[in-house]
């Protein structure tokens, strides 16, 4: 058992916890680079539409706005879950955590609708350089959300089984960082892919 420092929140309670959180920040730095290369490629290829449609012809405001509001709200609720966790309120924490994952599921549902819609109107992955990089960028973000849903579900199960311990609190906090990061990536997708494309 490692030394527990009770003056700090549970997720920071021992040296291993601090290292885990810092290590995750380094991972987020690498993720920033991953999405930066996707954005760089998107900006290079966005007008290379070949015989396929351009962004302005296929983007729809309503589903994009739903995705944005759902993800923003889920980022808020995972923040509330972390607040409840620091107060030691396990049930409130699990409620906020579950709401977060449900909102993530709604986001994913809308994105799947969006992808099938694009495919049905002739904007599939192989149509042009533009559709290729568009769906790769959106899909990379969507894949991260999908991974997050399973990861979050496993954390909920662990908190239910073991309660709020330095270990489960640390895992939950790291998940919250991941989820907020996905929201930040989405803000940039919303602004520089959708809104820029629809102007």
């Amino acid at each position, binding site marked *: 058992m490692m030394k527990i420092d009770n003056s700090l929140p549970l997720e920071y309670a021992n040296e291993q916890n601090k290292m885990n959180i810092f290590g995750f920040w380094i991972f987020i730095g690498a993720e920033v680079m991953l999405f930066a290369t996707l954005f760089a490629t998107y900006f290079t290829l966005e007008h290379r539409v070949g015989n396929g449609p351009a962004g302005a012809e296929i983007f729809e405001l309503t589903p994009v706005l739903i995705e944005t509001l759902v993800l923003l709200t889920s980022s808020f609720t995972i923040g509330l879950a972390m607040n409840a966790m620091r107060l030691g309120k396990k049930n409130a924490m699990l409620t906020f955590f579950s709401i977060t994952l449900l909102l993530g599921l709604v986001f994913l549902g809308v994105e799947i609708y969006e992808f099938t819609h694009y495919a049905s109107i002739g904007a599939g992955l192989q149509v042009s350089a533009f559709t290729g990089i568009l769906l790769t960028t959106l899909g990379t973000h969507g894949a991260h959300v999908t991974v997050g849903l399973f990861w979050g579900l496993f954390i909920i199960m662990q908190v239910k089984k073991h309660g709020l311990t330095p270990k489960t609190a640390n895992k939950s906090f790291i998940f919250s960082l991941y989820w907020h990061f996905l929201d930040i990536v989405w803000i940039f997708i919303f602004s*520089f892919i959708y809104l820029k494309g629809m102007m």
Partner: protein
Amino acid sequence: MSELFPRKQVMGFVFSLVLTAAALTVYFLDLSFMAAMTVLLATAFVQAGVQLVGFMHVGESEDRTMIYMNIFYGVAIALFTIFGTLLILVWDM
């Protein structure tokens, strides 16, 4: 009950909604490309800042200097990559 909804986080959420609405003006108003990009860059980066400081608890732990440096480094490399690519492949300079 109110302790479950801390003021800082509620305000952060409201602010992020306001920023989203502000970004939407580029869709509804007929702005020039430069003006619209300025609005989007401002709203997106402020939004990211709200998430980092308001929700991700940056600056609360004692290793905050290392975390800030890590974020700064990641964002700097991202901007070099994106604007370097734009400079050579899109703006053709």
